[in-house]
């Protein structure tokens, strides 16, 4: 760990999770109820500025430390992580690509959590193939007029500001050369559609954002130059993938924790089931997956922190850790037996939350393609 303070930070997060997050997870998940009380605590804790530079009032945490925070929280309850993660991806787009004026104007408000939001990329007909988006921004004097629909946008209902990917030149070839990223605050012509119902990842608002003649001043164009949006968003996704990997690792770890405890308490044939080899084999595999996922995440985060290209490493971490989450939650169910199917235990929540990690932030199929392409590029014959 790079800094002594990082150990204190993780300590504090652990305490917060045990005292405030874990006790409310089951209720909020089952009721699909937004955890308002956690938002205030996250703000006080400084999580909305976790990765934003200290000069803007953030904590300036490395991706490595940030990933450990995410894993720690997700090991108790994955969903609340989305409240600050999407927000930080938006902030990272501004911090890495914005003009000096944009950074000075937006980042302090993002870091304090006074202005919260997320990132708007996915559309009803474009997710993995982001270049196929249809939302457009048309220049009109000193403003742009935005029309289109975004979907599955985390924080859509409770957030106020979003980095929205649009086409400023729908006819551009290649397609990404016509894409730009705008900061849009809710207001006339920018409304929220329905809150989407989900299998898991409950309590967090995933919603549709509808743009109908929404006007933004030209200085909301991140970086001030059209045509950079795709690259800006794609770089934000590298951090996003490390984050999803960290969530997957958290779910895998949480499922292991529950299983390890239960296996020592539950008895069959006169002894704790942890004494049966059938269960031991599962526990060993689960623990190995957690450790492997953490190491891959650590490697990807270190590369991201050094500023090197990390899509191969982030892809591997995301692929492995998210699958680890799915496998461990299912294995934990098998160890819990009938009780795993009861909503009075947390295992069913891990099981419902885990698959999103395989799908979100670029499907695992896409990750494999990215990994393979990078492999070929780095190892030409």
């Amino acid at each position, binding site marked *: 760990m790079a800094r002594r303070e990082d150990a*204190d930070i993780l300590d504090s997060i652990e305490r917060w999770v045990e005292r405030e997050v874990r006790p409310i997870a089951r209720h909020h998940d089952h009721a699909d109820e937004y955890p308002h009380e956690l938002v205030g605590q996250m703000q006080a804790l400084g999580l909305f500025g976790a990765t934003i530079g*200290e000069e803007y009032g953030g904590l300036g945490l490395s991706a490595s430390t940030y990933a450990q925070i995410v894993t720690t929280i997700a090991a108790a309850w994955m969903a609340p992580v989305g409240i600050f993660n999407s927000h930080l991806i938006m902030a990272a787009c501004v911090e890495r690509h914005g003009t000096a004026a944009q950074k000075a104007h937006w980042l302090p408000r993002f870091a304090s959590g006074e202005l919260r939001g997320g990132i708007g990329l996915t559309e009803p007909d474009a997710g993995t193939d982001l270049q196929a988006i249809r939302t457009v921004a048309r220049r009109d004097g000193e403003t742009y007029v935005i029309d289109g629909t975004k979907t599955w946008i985390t924080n859509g209902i409770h957030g106020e500001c979003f980095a929205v990917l649009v086409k400023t030149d729908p006819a551009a070839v290649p397609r990404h050369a016509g894409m730009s990223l705008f900061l849009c605050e809710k207001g006339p012509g920018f409304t929220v559609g329905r809150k989407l119902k989900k299998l898991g990842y409950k309590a967090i608002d995933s919603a549709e954002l509808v743009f109908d003649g929404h006007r933004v001043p030209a200085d909301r164009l991140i970086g001030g130059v059209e045509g950079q949006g795709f690259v800006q968003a794609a770089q934000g996704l590298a951090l996003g993938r490390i984050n999803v990997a960290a969530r997957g690792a958290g779910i895998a770890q949480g499922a292991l924790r529950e299983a390890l405890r239960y296996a020592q308490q539950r008895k069959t044939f006169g002894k704790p089931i942890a004494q049966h080899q059938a269960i031991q084999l599962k526990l060993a595999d689960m623990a190995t997956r957690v450790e492997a996922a953490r190491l891959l995440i650590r490697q990807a985060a270190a590369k991201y922190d050094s500023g090197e290209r990390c899509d191969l490493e982030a892809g591997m971490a995301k692929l492995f850790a998210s699958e680890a989450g799915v496998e461990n939650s299912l294995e934990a169910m098998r160890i819990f037996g009938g009780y795993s199917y009861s909503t009075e235990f947390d295992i069913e929540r891990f099981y419902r939350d885990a698959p999103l990690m395989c799908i979100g932030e670029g499907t695992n199929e896409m990750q494999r393609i990215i990994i393979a392409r990078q492999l070929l590029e780095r190892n030409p014959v």
Partner: protein
Amino acid sequence: MKRILVGVKRVIDFNVRVKVKPDGSGIVTDGVKLSLNPFDEIALEEALRIKERGGADEVVVATIGPADCQQQLRTALAMGADRALHVVHEGTIEPLAGARVLLKLIDKEQPFLVILGKQAIDDDNNQTGQMLAALWQRPQATFASKVELTDSTARVTREVDAGLETLEVDLPAVVTADLRLNEPRYVKLPDIMKAKKKPLESLPFADLGVSAAARVKMVRTEPPAQRQKGIMVKDTQELIAALRKRGALQ
């Protein structure tokens, strides 16, 4: 300046399952997580709350220990203490020596209130606060579960075997914190960053003129005996019979 002095000790984290060294000479501390003594955190939390209510101007936190105890002092500063004093000393400090060091710090800082944890979870001595009050010739109120201050007194509710006892002591005084006094805050991450810049003064132990000579000889450390497996009884009658059999009931 109305000042509260809080004494803290670094101990093995309460979540760690402590292991005894094979030769019985002590416990394994290598690679083990170290934290603030939980009772001391409660003491610090109480001091911070008093300050936040306007009952004090400054909270100074102090510890005795090796150089890397600074970590725990930084944690205390992140919780909200204004300044830290670090009496640098390698090796064991018994309660009496600890109390004598604290008395030197009282001379230096002139606090109107000293709050300590009732005991440290490593040795469970539960002596330092009492000894300090005696050396300082000031009142003590130990095992506090509630502290209310007036200008010149502290009303302290204590947890005693028979229930709750309320004492009123003249200030300055020594108060030691029990478990239910409060629930310490979790540290806010920006405060961890700010704590880096708060003043932390190192004082060499040798300069204080206190002897660290051991007065107690530690003979051997051993783990507690493994708990015997319990038995299940059907009803009260069977329970009474079982207790009689073991001589626990006449």
